[in-house]
């Protein structure tokens, strides 16, 4: 019994290492695009990906032929949607959201978390519209519309808002 468990552990470790070596790069890029961080400074993306991969590792023996990449990607998306929702719920003002967005430096930094999630899943990962809709619990038309809007925003970014003048600060707060 113990020997069988040990053999299973060794096999799982080997397979998982090969999986991370093969898919880690692409998953890192997906996570970095999701969080909107710069490619060379992506602590949040790393944290997200580590937990998604840990989940895949824990479920490795029960995947039963399911693609581990699919599993990791799904958990990445779910975890990201979850954390983004909590952040959104705790943000008090649009100003705070804009400040947080301005700190991001990735190519999708100008989008909202949900727009990033849908755009990355649809276009970068090539997941079908129906699957994205089912994963996020949205109607398919809504996913379609959000994807279109996000595409337009990325290709034609709106002009950056001018920094507030020092004298107007007292009036806005």
């Amino acid at each position, binding site marked *: 019994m113990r020997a069988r468990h040990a053999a299973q552990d060794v096999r799982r470790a080997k397979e*998982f290492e090969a999986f991370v070596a093969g898919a880690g790069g692409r998953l890192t890029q997906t996570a970095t695009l999701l969080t909107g961080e710069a*490619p060379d400074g992506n602590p949040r993306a790393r944290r997200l990906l580590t937990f998604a991969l840990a*989940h895949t*590792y824990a479920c490795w023996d029960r995947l039963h032929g399911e693609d581990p990449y699919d599993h990791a990607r799904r958990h990445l998306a779910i975890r990201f949607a979850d954390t983004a929702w909590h952040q959104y719920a705790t943000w008090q003002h649009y100003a705070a959201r804009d400040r947080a967005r301005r700190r991001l430096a990735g190519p999708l930094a100008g989008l909202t978390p949900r727009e990033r999630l849908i755009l990355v899943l649809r276009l970068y990962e090539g997941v079908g519209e129906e699957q994205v809709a089912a994963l996020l619990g949205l109607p398919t038309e809504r996913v379609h519309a959000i994807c279109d809007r996000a595409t337009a925003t*990325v290709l034609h970014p709106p002009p950056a808002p001018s920094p507030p003048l020092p004298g107007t600060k007292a009036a806005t707060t």
Partner: protein
Amino acid sequence: MNRPEREAAVRQIMERSVPRLPPELHTDAVRHGSRMLRRRTLARRLMWLLLWAAAVAFAVWAMVAEPWVEPPSETTPPLTDW
């Protein structure tokens, strides 16, 4: 610019920035994943233990209390002589 062209352009923008694969990703994932597995095993064992204890407790109580035996009536006197 039609839809496929727009999508291709966005795809190109997304593929332009390539982050470095973090070297500690595999070890961190394995560490967290092993902890998850250990916790799951522990939780499963605890659940079985609890289930077993509940079953034993129920059996002992049933043997002692014998709830299937009709309790003696306290309101109606026993019906005799008719």
